[in-house]
């Protein structure tokens, strides 16, 4: 191997270990029929879900397909703006690219009548008082700030109504409804 001669002017400098080279890419994203339909109505302060053609399961937000069967879901249903916490995390770690006061509560929100949940922020609730099964409602942005974005709901806050029991909260609710009363 050739001996490398380092010029005396830089001989005492610290060696470069790594170089950060931020890059940027701009692209046009087409969300598809289901997400587009959802976002348009979300801009009118309406929350849509998809109905599974297989067993009527309600999927919010709509993805256009039932992940269990791979079947097309083209039926939409309007959802209430209330639900419950399926489970949650009290987070002391900042999210890259988003400024939130720590700690914050990220929770799986199950809307009333929905059979899957989505992750969202819970606020107006001290972390130690958040519970699995706690009932919540949406807090929307002011009307003049509402647009075709996923961020129209600022956060979810407790309604003060009685909690759902653990065995009916979150993903467990599906099994209760399925094997329980006839309106499943």
């Amino acid at each position, binding site marked *: 191997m050739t001996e490398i001669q380092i010029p005396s002017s830089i001989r005492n400098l610290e060696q470069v270990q790594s170089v950060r080279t931020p890059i940027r890419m701009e692209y046009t994203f087409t969300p598809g029929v289901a997400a587009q339909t959802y976002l348009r109505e979300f801009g009118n302060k309406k929350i849509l879900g998809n109905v599974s053609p297989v067993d009527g399961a309600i999927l919010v937000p709509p993805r256009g397909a039932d992940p269990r069967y791979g079947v097309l879901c083209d039926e939409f249903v309007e959802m209430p703006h209330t639900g419950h916490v399926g489970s*949650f*995390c009290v*987070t002391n*770690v900042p999210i*890259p*690219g988003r400024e939130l006061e720590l700690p914050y509560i990220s929770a799986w929100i199950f809307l009333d009548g929905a059979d899957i949940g989505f*992750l969202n922020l819970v606020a107006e609730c001290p972390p130690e008082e958040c519970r*699995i099964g706690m009932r919540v409602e949406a807090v929307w942005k002011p009307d003049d700030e509402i647009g075709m*974005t996923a961020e129209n709901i600022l956060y979810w806050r407790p309604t003060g109504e009685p909690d759902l029991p653990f065995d009916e909260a979150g993903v467990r609710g599906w099994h209760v409804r399925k094997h329980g009363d006839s309106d499943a």
Partner: protein
Amino acid sequence: MAAGGELAAVIGVGMTKFSATRGDVSMPGLVREAAERALKDAGMVWGDIDAVVMGKAPDFFEGVMMPEIFLGEALGAVGKPMLRVHTAGSVGGSTALVAASLVHSGVHDRVLTVAWEKQSESNAMWALSLKQPFQVSINAGAGGYFSPIIRQYMEATQAPELIGCMVAFKDRQHALLNPYAHLHQPDLTFDQVVESPMLWEPIRYSETCPSSDGAAAMVIVNETEAEKSDNPAWIHAGAMRSEANNFPGRDEVNPQASRECAADLWNQAGISNPREEIDAVEMYVPFSWYEPMWLESLGFCERGDGWKLVESGATHINGGDLPVNCSGGVLSSNPIGASGMIRFAEAALQVRGMAGEHQVEGARKAMGHAYGGGAQYFAMWVVGKDKPTT
């Protein structure tokens, strides 16, 4: 064997030292280090290898797209068949299974398999929190995803709050017996684990895995080649399963894909009582509570009893009858893409009697386990000191 065909065995294992920053080697240097050690252990040279199977976590971690091409030369794969495997965090396990399948099928006789990650040249936390178009960005890394699942396990089982700390403390003690482990914390006390700050409550700082650089490699060969080795680890069973990460009624704590993968595995291996018949387990536990959760899911105990095994000390190398993660586990070393293969390789080392200070005495059958994504991709194998009879 459900995989069918030829018997296969591990005759070479190689790992790098795991650490936060392997600044002394490039990515090619890192994978080559592990691969050379595996070849040396197997008593082979590069020319003996028929094909190479490589795995790592998603490309956007390091920002190197299709690194298998970039690393082909370092892995001696020029002019040879090379495969890349992608299954998120479980990839190290599935990569080993793909390599084994090339031997089981009779396509190749001697396959080199390597899995790696260089977290110091990436930002996994950022990569796992990428904002998706038209979705709310609320999830801070993997801990933010797994914390709500762990919370449901804790509430469903009413397990004592400090079970997770017991697992974390045990794995850090085990790591002291493994010179390759990233975290060596001889002065760590149980109280320090308990008092470490909550990051993603209920997950404490000390209950999470570190970010590591590292690679693991294995040489997997057919029966004829394995007979030449004085201590092969015979592959008794291998299984993979996956499921979607959000669907109505999904059991997030004990996923169907996990249960069915384990059932297939035990069936292939002819094992009816895993607790009795498995001598050492290398399980993918990046957050402490996953040890009791997987103990249940994998059938080592009844549902709801995993935490009791932890509490009883059953999973500790000293005195436990089912030692789990004697290497220190993912909680002590986490080069993400390699983490699954380290589990599989450590299982092989145990049945070959080559695990050094963290050897489980007399281990004849060991399990390697990996999971990935939103606890939705699973890869498992059973290796044995004895040639499989089933």
